[in-house]
């Protein structure tokens, strides 16, 4: 077989390898970028790869047991405030 045919056959093989690799990688990158692949399931509004808002996502941090009730109170208070006060 002439050299250009050998190279062509190699290129055809690599083409399909890359195509399969792309098809396999794209969903992973997309899911990762949208934060869906994290443990804990889908999280709208969060990203696995924060760039524009690089501060740590509060949802990600484990909340100590002793502060959990306080967080709940604060959240409730915030809800009442926003419901009562004129926006």
């Amino acid at each position: 077989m002439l050299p250009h045919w050998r190279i062509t056959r190699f290129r055809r093989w690599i083409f399909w390898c890359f195509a399969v690799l792309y098809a396999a990688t794209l969903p992973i990158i997309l899911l990762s970028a949208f934060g869906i692949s994290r443990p804990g399931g889908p999280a709208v509004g969060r990203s696995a790869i924060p760039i524009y808002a690089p501060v740590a996502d509060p949802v990600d941090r484990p909340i100590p047991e002793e502060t959990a009730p306080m967080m709940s109170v604060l959240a409730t208070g915030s809800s009442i405030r926003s419901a009562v006060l004129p926006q």
Partner: protein
Amino acid sequence: MRFEYTPFPEDPEEMAWHRALCRLPLIATWSVLLIMGISVFAFPYLGAALIIAFLLFYVFRLAYYGLFLAVAFLRVLSEERSSWMERLRDLAATASPASRKKGGKSRFGNRIASLLHAQVVESCRPPAAPLPELERLLHLVIIPVANEDRKVYEPALRALAAGSLDPKRHMIVVLAVEARFTARVSAQAEAARREYRDAFRDFLVVSHPADLPGEVPGKGSNVGYAASTMTEYFLGHSLDPSDVVLTCIDADAVVGREYFACLSYYWLAEPDRVRCCFQPLPVFGNNIWKTNPLVRVIEMSATLLQMIDSTSVDTLVSFSCYSYGFSTLEQAGFWPPDVIGEDAAVFWKTFLHYGGDFRAIPLPVTVSMDAAEGRTFWKALGAAYRQKLRWAYGTENLAIVFRGLFRHNLVRGRRRRQAILKFTDNALAQATWPIILSVLIWLPQVQQVLAKGNLLPMNGLGTVTTVVLELSTIFLALMGLATGVFAFRGSRGIPAWRKALYPLEWLIVFPVASIVLGAAPAIHAQAKLAFRKAIIYVPMEKLRGETAGTAKWETENAVPGRT
């Protein structure tokens, strides 16, 4: 209904198909750009996903290109110094080159070259069909001359006359001049004929009459006319057209001393020589240091793309300087006289004529040509833009070939799919990639600012963008270094600091050049095609001898032994 390779089909229904297909590239380009741009603002999730999908595709494409660029470089750099005459003798005797060269230099490149040569010789041994006789082989070289001065094509003639494959025995040169230009051009061509006729087997000047019916002024009609007149010449001289290899080179192209020996070698070795053409590697390096950095990087990127294409006979198409079997072209009807981009047009016409069973075979030798230049920065940029517009107008072939594929079913199977993929990729890549990479990928940031950073789903895009741009930068730097191999060849007298800055030019200038001399002429050509605005073939101005450095180029590039 019979298919004709023309952009002006007579049948009204065929014309309607053609017009619709002419609009396809422009519609596809704007669809891609608008869908990506609008979706970032209207549907941020979708916009981010599309941009991520493109960026990932781009990374894979860079890796794919990088791999085959390395393969192409390895082949060209290994083989270009080979003695093709010696190889031709090996081929005739089907000697074992690998064993004979064991005592020679053990450089890595030499070993690769010996290995490739051994593969060729092996493929020619029985039971393969016997090779044609080298003694009967004849090279017909057509040099189209529009309004170029003699000093433009003089180096080309000198290089042909200095070829290692005896030009007095094997070569007929035809200067194809345009009658529509001044008498000075014809007079100079005649003077060249008188001076060089003894250097070749024969030397002819063929004048292409102006305004022949059904023709568009350009290189295609000129070369096609010259080739068609040669049919009678071969009959008159009792020469068999199937022994003739036709090579079309630009007036400013300089071939190496071993070029025709290499071409003969592959012509003899290729068992299916009637169904293929031969494509050397064009390097726009004659005057590369006289033009501006924008043009320099774009011209060199054209060489790189051609190198990448040369690693697959599935995707390679004849470009600029190329060779065909004369009888192959004769059967296919030579060049289409009414298509501007003649190099690709003659390939696709022959491709359709043979039902897709036609390929371009890469030759591992270079042909040196002129880059676009001008007396000022802006004139050089304008000349380069017009040249790229003309090249991009080659999209015209898409409409004609798609007509042949979809309406006439001339090609089926794998070659049909490959042709569709090639045209789609060509039409979209040049027109959209620079704009996506320079503008569209930043739109999510604009969207974030406008939406006051509330739409966090696009956050991940930032990381992907950063990684991709870093990889692109590395790839650009590598391209700068790689093309230096060719760019530095004609750089005698160029200060070392300018050469040192050359890879940096790629990093700084290429992003701008890819829009100004890449996407802009591509979209411009698509718009012209869609709205039926023809472009007029204007030969590129050659400033040879008018600026410093020309004499240097002529001596450097016509060095015997360089291929």
